[in-house]
């Protein structure tokens, strides 16, 4: 599914003053691409992720997902898109802390009305894949940061979405654990040909992507292309 941004603006109203977080972004992300978004703090990276992920609507401009303008989506269509097409991975993991690892991973499937046995089977499969087969009944508070992020990635993968959006997925992890998470995301990209967009500060992690978009003050400063082979190699 192709993602297209056409002159996308996001302007926050702070009392009387308007704070533009995105100022006319034009970008196209191809199906199966591994894209990184880099830039200083406050440059608008998260804002951009949120509008791509249908968590927020742009103030101006158009966003096309697979050719459809999301401005025309109603609330439930947006929710459906988030639930079926997009998997989110957040810096703070954002697990539901009263649900076990397994229940967390099953939750997106349940919002899509997948029956319990199927959802359970699928969730266990993915949790095994990320090496958490023996932790499925743990609550998030009983898991390490790296383990929690692996649960979060499992949750993002549960509905088999076309796009994975990861906003600083390694930001709260030590470098070794971060490395592991990134390896895993790269593997998903390679094996499942999913579109992956990650936001990161980390220079080394940036190098894994096929293309890097540098943001500055809400505008695209430059775009760096890398040959596809190198994308994984640099790891």
């Amino acid at each position, binding site marked *: 599914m192709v993602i297209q941004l056409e002159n996308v603006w996001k302007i926050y109203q702070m009392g009387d003053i308007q704070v533009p977080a995105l100022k006319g972004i034009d970008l196209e992300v191809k199906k199966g691409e591994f894209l990184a978004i880099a830039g200083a703090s406050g440059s608008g990276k998260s804002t951009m992720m949120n509008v791509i992920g249908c968590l927020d609507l742009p103030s101006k401009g158009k966003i096309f997902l697979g050719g459809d303008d999301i401005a025309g989506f109603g*609330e439930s269509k947006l*929710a*459906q898109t*988030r*639930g*079926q097409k997009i998997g989110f991975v957040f810096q703070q993991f*954002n697990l539901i802390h*009263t649900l076990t690892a397994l229940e967390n991973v099953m939750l997106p499937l349940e*919002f899509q009305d997948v029956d319990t046995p199927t959802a359970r089977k699928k969730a266990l499969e993915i949790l095994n894949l990320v090496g958490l087969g023996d932790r499925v009944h743990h609550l998030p508070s009983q898991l390490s940061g790296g383990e929690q992020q692996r649960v979060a990635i499992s949750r993002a993968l549960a509905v088999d979405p076309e796009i994975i959006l990861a906003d600083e997925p390694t930001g709260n992890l030590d470098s070794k654990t971060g490395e592991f998470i990134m390896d895993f995301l790269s593997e998903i990209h390679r094996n499942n040909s999913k579109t992956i967009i990650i936001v990161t500060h980390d220079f080394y992690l940036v190098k894994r992507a096929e293309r890097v978009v540098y943001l500055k003050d809400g505008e695209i400063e430059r775009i760096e292309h890398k040959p596809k082979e190198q994308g994984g190699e640099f790891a």
Partner: protein
Amino acid sequence: MKINKSLKLAVNIIVHSKLRTWLTIIGIVIGIAAVVAIVSIGEGMQQNVESRLGGLGADIITISPGGGRASVGFRGGHGGGMPGSTATSATAENLTKKDVLVLQSVEGVEYIQGIVSGRGEMYYLGEKATVSVEGVDPLVWKEMTTSELESGRFLGPSDYNVVIVGGRIAKDTFKQPLTVNRIITIEEKAFKVVGILKESGGFGGDDNKIIMPIKAARDTLEDVGSDEFDSITLKVANTDDVDPIMEEADKKLMISRHLTEKEKDFRISSSQSIQETMSDITQTMTLFLGAIAAVSLLVGAVGIANTMFTSVLEKTKEIGIMKSIGAKNSDIMMIFLLNSAIVGLVGGLLGICLGTGISSLLPFLGMRLMGMGRDGMTTVVTPMLLIYALLISIGIGMVAGVIPAYRASKLKPVDALRYE
């Protein structure tokens, strides 16, 4: 999302905020318990009235002297056997033979009799008591009364100085129980007891009466004119006709006594009309008390709403998370609505248990409220009451949860996710 999944998430929220949830539930428990207990008192009174008035017989119409519709009540009941009726009759125009003749012509009347009544001094084995005496038509009375004989016989046509004794007088009034063939003295006249009645336990029954032939009563009681009656009772052939016959009797009496509506000096009542009046009274009272109890329910509802607002606020981040992984507004709404419905349901269940418990204890607490007599108070908890109470509590839970749940569902995903 399927409802059972929403339910699971709703339960999950409740399980993880136990203390707050319980505190909220207590509010509903108290409200529902109060309503159940109070309504059960009302129902009890209702049943009490019904069973006690049962002694009157559904097919009996009573005409007694005294003006005004306002006085239609059980005091005007059967034959003026209650104290007070004779006092009224002294001031009002008494009923006469002519009235009996007039009433006899009303269609559908099977039996009719004039009754004289009053109070008299009674002696038995050296003990004295004041009793209600009723002089009746010996032949007609046994056809009209609902009382049954415990022992002995009914009055016969040639009886004069014999009496039938009400069950309670026979058993409780004197040290030595009265039995058939004993001689008693009433107003210095000797009578032989020929029958003892079974106790009926009702208001309108003959438990506290001495029944004697009307001739004997006229000679015994003071202030009883030779042509006058203290009340006239009719027995209708068909119970369904009680109301039209009452109307007809009323009309005919008004005409024959040359009265206008304002001057009306008699009243007509049936056990049905008395029952209705009593029901009205108890229902109004139940409604009034119930309304007071409902106020505590209102407080409980506000409690639920308050807890739900707190809960939504606390769950803001999770609402954002759920939305980011595909929850629709309706899913979020459902989860929080179910959450408050469960609070209502649990509160309702515990409330009806507590309410039923209180209601079954009330009679033992010796609360002889509203003069319900020597039996104290009865409370009745009907299944319908419990079902209503439960539905109301679930309803309150949901209504109280609507606004918080709506708010939760309308949260913007980005804003909710940013909330810490």
